[in-house]
């Protein structure tokens, strides 16, 4: 599989070619390709003059990076303390049932990735679900279907949130 190189080239022109740019570049690569493919990591290493081993150490250290392709829609279910006590586990179970995947997995059509995160910093809205970059607070099990429906149609994030409220 060869990946398009244009996005990577564009990302690399945005930052100075040195080691301190590494995390920013990897973040952008993760956004553009939805994962960090090995062939691109090698090119990043070359462009920034950082040893490949170091690039891979950074890529495997941060939870925000993934070596496996993530789905178009990334669903993060918070299981921080506040979300946990307000039913975060039930939310997770319902997502698993609806999507037919386990935590950390991606649906076979590459549409959804389901993940548990430890805290998203919005405990007052517990339990929280983050879909791509949209935060959904005070979640209940029967609101989840609507979130999934909203991601299927090409509605804006705001419209999707309104619908669940």
């Amino acid at each position, binding site marked *: 599989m060869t990946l398009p190189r244009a996005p990577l080239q564009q990302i690399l022109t945005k930052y100075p070619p040195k080691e301190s740019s590494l995390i920013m570049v990897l973040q952008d690569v993760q956004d553009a390709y939805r994962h960090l493919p*090995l062939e691109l990591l*090698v090119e990043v290493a070359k462009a920034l003059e950082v*040893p*490949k*081993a*170091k690039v*891979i*150490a950074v890529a*495997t*250290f941060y939870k925000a990076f993934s070596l496996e392709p993530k789905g178009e829609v990334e669903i993060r279910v918070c299981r921080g303390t506040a979300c946990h006590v307000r039913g975060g586990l039930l939310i997770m179970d319902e997502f698993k049932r609806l999507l037919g995947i386990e935590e950390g997995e991606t649906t076979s059509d590459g549409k959804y990735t389901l993940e548990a995160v430890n805290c998203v910093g919005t405990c007052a809205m517990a339990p929280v679900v983050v879909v791509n970059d949209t935060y959904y607070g005070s979640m209940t099990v029967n609101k989840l279907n609507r979130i999934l429906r909203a991601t299927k149609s090409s509605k804006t994030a705001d419209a999707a949130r309104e619908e669940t409220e």
Partner: protein
Amino acid sequence: MQLTIDKRSVVARKGEYLLEVAQRNGIEIPALCHHPAVEPWGGCRLCMVEITHPDWKGWTGLVTACLYPVQDGLIVSTDTKKVHQVRAGVLDLLLARCPGSSLIQNLARQYGIEETSFTPRKAPDLCILCGLCIRICEKIGASAISSIGRGVEKLVSVPYETVATAACVGCLSCANICPTGAIAFSESEHCRTIWSRNFELVRCEECKAVIGTPEQLEHFARRSGLDRSYFTKCDSCRNREAAARFVRVTF
């Protein structure tokens, strides 16, 4: 400057770290992640010592000796109850991680620990994640190995074997610097194997002792700016040759 380590007055230069000064004066402080060839790191937390200063109004602190810069008048104690406690805590954890390591077992025994109070790791290896191998590999300029992942899953490896092992020169520095002997390698008549990669061996022209792998010698020649032909004999043969030459010149 002057400081006191275990009631002994010792001299130190500005910019030195406590551990170096103690070691130079024969005062033993256990350390696992420290090696003079690489920058101090403060990873193993075994070299903790208790410090105080006449100006500190009785305040004392626990610091890692390998990373604490010397200071005039500092009073360092390497064997107090507190120091003993933290080191015992570290060793208890290390013993849970590497129950099979004789080095850790012996150190733990010195701190009164025969068996870990934690649940030992399932299928343990000998790696204590001190990072010495990664740092020496970086220092050498190969940077072939790195830590992969984080937390309980963290390990030292050549990531994506086929890609990263290409950077390995087979010098064995990582295996030699490892305090617990966690990095496996083997050497036969003509072949050295480390990180699942096979290397040819170059032998000394004179005495046939192993001097390294072609990749390693090439790398060292490049880094040192010396000619590749400098690396055809082993150190002792080269020394003998130089000594013979000096004898001819001087006498």
